[in-house]
């Protein structure tokens, strides 16, 4: 019955299929995608109302507020990364699939970034204008947010995989991820602040890029190992 010459689908088809399926699910259930985005937009618009509309203060606090809101919004969205797959048993099916698990985890994380990180990056210029951020700084902020949210999605996938079987694992997930996410927040917010003060800011971008590449190369393996452990 088995034809030994027939080969398994390539790992790229596995990667693409996982990402495509999650994007399709996000398309059919847009609420999950919009929730973190609303959270991000709400924090960023409420903050000026609370601290007062003085231009100086807004310019000073803008980068920090945008970055903290982006970090929290990403943490909020992480729970759904493996949660629904765990509940309907498709995570088990991924675990027994002939595709390498790190590749499938990477596919899922890529879809997660496209549906949570990328919308944040795209919306951030509109919110940045309310903080009187000059256009040149907005570009820097979008670049740092892009690199930062990629890193956060990848680091977050490890935490999401470790807490997948737990009920109400969000708090634990945040605790696990925050120490790893701190450098992203510090580098991201400070780089934007430096750019706003007409200072040299490229070092921060390089460091963020390095962190993103390091997580891209290591996080999928950690996620796969975590998934195996939490599904024992």
């Amino acid at each position, binding site marked *: 019955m088995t034809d030994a010459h027939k080969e398994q689908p390539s790992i790229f088809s*596995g990667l693409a299929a996982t990402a495509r*399926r999650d994007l399709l*699910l996000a398309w059919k*259930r847009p609420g999950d995608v919009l929730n973190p985005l609303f959270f991000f937009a709400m924090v960023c618009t409420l903050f000026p109302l609370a601290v007062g509309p003085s231009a100086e203060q807004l310019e000073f606090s803008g980068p920090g507020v945008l970055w903290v809101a982006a970090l929290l919004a990403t943490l909020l969205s992480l729970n759904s990364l493996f949660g629904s797959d765990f509940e*309907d*048993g*498709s995570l088990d099916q991924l675990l*027994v*699939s*002939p595709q390498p698990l790190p590749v499938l985890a990477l596919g899922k994380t890529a879809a997660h970034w496209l549906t949570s990180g990328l919308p944040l990056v795209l919306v951030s210029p509109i919110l940045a204008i309310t903080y009187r951020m000059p256009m040149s700084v907005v570009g820097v902020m979008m670049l740092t947010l892009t690199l930062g949210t990629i890193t956060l999605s990848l680091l977050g996938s490890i935490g999401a995989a470790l807490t997948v079987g737990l009920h109400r694992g969000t708090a634990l997930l945040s605790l696990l991820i925050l120490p790893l996410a701190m450098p992203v927040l510090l580098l991201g917010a400070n780089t934007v602040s430096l750019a706003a003060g007409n200072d040299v800011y490229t070092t921060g971008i390089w460091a963020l890029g390095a962190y993103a590449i390091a997580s891209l190369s290591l996080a999928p393996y950690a996620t796969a190992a975590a998934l195996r452990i939490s599904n024992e």
Partner: protein
Amino acid sequence: MCPRNSLPSATECKLLTAKLSAANLTLIRGERCLFEGLDFALDNGGLLLLEGRNGCGKTSLMRAIAGMLSLETGEIHWNGVPVLQQRQTFHGELVWLAHRTGLKWDLTMVENLKFERSLRRQSDRDPEEVYAKLGIERLKRLPLRSLSAGQQRRVALARMLLADVPLWLMDEPFTNLDREGRKLVMELVEDHLGADGMCVMAAHQDVEIDAPVTKIRMQ
């Protein structure tokens, strides 16, 4: 098997040469020992039937066979090589019909099966014929959410039939199925075994089948 002076016994020889074999399996979950010193061997065309009451560890054994649980003692071998050393190859040879179907409720049947096609080697069967055989050809464009539990199980069976694998792991395959559905499952298993396939089935009802059956009665 560990090196030793005496020759391996007849049972051990059988365990080593079988396609799927296990020796001296022990699994402890929490403080309960689910099984201890369990051996089995399964060859092409054979059915391994796991019997026992609810909660006796059938699903755990199934998960252990699929390489998802680490055992206290013992190893499961596929073609004489431990499963955990060749997990990816082994997973390419099996398909698992779990208690939870693993299908996405928001996607249609075709979208669900298309995803599976990108992960696992597919058989030469015509998908349309498989759908017709399972009686789900009219449900292709509906999201799984709107299907009944039995229909969803039939979609999971379609996934199984479309995969080109020798080993079927079936955990309670008769759940939610009507009388014809149960008969159909038995026919499908018989066909599969007839084509030199193998099947591990956990069931708490009697299974009558015209094939070599190895029974494991779990306590």
